[in-house]
């Protein structure tokens, strides 16, 4: 695929309040840069992320969606991220089955102490999505920016 140098992907990051959102805050506190493409939505737990939110993001113009939660075993709610892991694994596998590019979606575990990991993950994810180009396979043409 041709890489458009000027392509600035829209990336939605769902972050759990207790670990990953705090991790994102920490990368801010530590002034660790990551691309402006990433916009964070705070959810109480990664298990709050409904597959329809992910599809909705792609429909409305997102080029990549990443979910971040506490490391397995560290969930503030004990088990939320374990459910997330199953649900999201199956969902991503289904999207792959439908021919959607694998690198458009990601699930990462980022703790409150991992500001550096958060920034690095977002940096990498943005690059991966940039390399894929705009989301065409799971977009709603009506929402494409004129």
């Amino acid at each position, binding site marked *: 695929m041709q890489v458009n140098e000027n392509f600035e992907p829209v990336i939605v990051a769902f972050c759990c309040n207790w670990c990953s959102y705090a991790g994102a805050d920490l990368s801010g506190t530590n002034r660790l840069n990551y691309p402006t493409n990433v916009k964070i939505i705070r959810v109480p737990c990664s298990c709050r992320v409904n*597959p*329809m939110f992910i*599809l*909705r993001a*792609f*429909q409305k113009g997102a080029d990549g969606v990443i979910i971040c939660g506490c490391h*397995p*075993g560290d969930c503030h709610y004990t*088990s939320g991220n*374990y*459910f997330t*892991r*199953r*649900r*999201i*694994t*199956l*969902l*991503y*596998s*289904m*999207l*792959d*089955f*439908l*021919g*959607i*590019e*694998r690198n458009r*979606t*990601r*699930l990462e575990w980022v703790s409150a102490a991992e500001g550096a990991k958060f920034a690095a993950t977002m940096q990498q994810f943005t690059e991966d999505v940039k390399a894929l180009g705009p989301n065409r*396979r*799971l*977009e*709603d*043409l*009506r929402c494409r920016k004129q």
Partner: protein
Amino acid sequence: MQEAMIKRAKELLADGSVDRVIGWKRGEFAYDITPAVFTTAEELDRDFVCDDFTAANVSKYLVKETQKEGKILAFLKPCDTYSFNQLVKEHRIDREKVYVIGIEGGPKLDIEKIKAKGITGILSVKNEDYTLKIETIYGTQTMPFYEAILGKCASCKSKKHVVFDELIGEDGDVLDSNRFEMVEKLENMTAQERFDFWRDQLSKCIRCNACRNVCPACTCENCVFDNPKSGIDNKAPADSFEENMFHIIRAFHVAGRCTDCGECSRVCPQHIPLHLLNRKFIKDINELYGEYQAGADTTSRAPLNTYDKNDCEPSVVHERGVE
């Protein structure tokens, strides 16, 4: 078998064991059979049918039927018993109100496969030693029985009844089916090829909701796609995205609950192989979280309602197959 079923149904009605019987009613032609509830011996004698075309899974009707007074007799094929069990497990069917008679399963015939051979004006279809003799307005035609069986029967997973109060005929075994063959074939394609395959298929969707409404796992009081409050309600696929979304979300909602009864693909007027989406989830669940057959029992925890601390990470998607 039909005679034995009618006889037994009449007995159970007569002795008051059941108040109603759910089965199939003959139609205008050889094949247009409708699920129906019978309450009298006369109705049974006149209309009850169980033949090569009685493929419809009646278990979903029991959700509605068991909300009524009295007990109902249900004739369930092996595949239907899985749906039944799953509905019992999800508290959708009141087990106490159903008397289940397990009957032998298919293979059942797919009239569309017969018509696809260019056979039209069909007056009757007879199975003579696994050759179908089809009387039509334009003369008699024949075709091999197995070329006309339903897709869901061709990849039958089990001849075993997982629940019954009594059996008519023999109980069978869980089969070593080849049902994941097509899923595997797709998995081995490139992402572009898969995308093209599904675009071609899902673009046919007219959102008639037949797949959803026939699905025994789709018994929601109000489906998210009909509920404006859900934010994803949607009546027609106005964009290719919506064609995809409906089927992804539907498959996800039944993931871990779908018994692979195959009704979705049977009823699709556009012949979209929807069961492949469900089977993909089943295959993934089996491979990633251990073999699981929804409806095999009424107590096990659904794979998406449980977890293992050592579950694989979603990166497993990247490690498998081709992109």
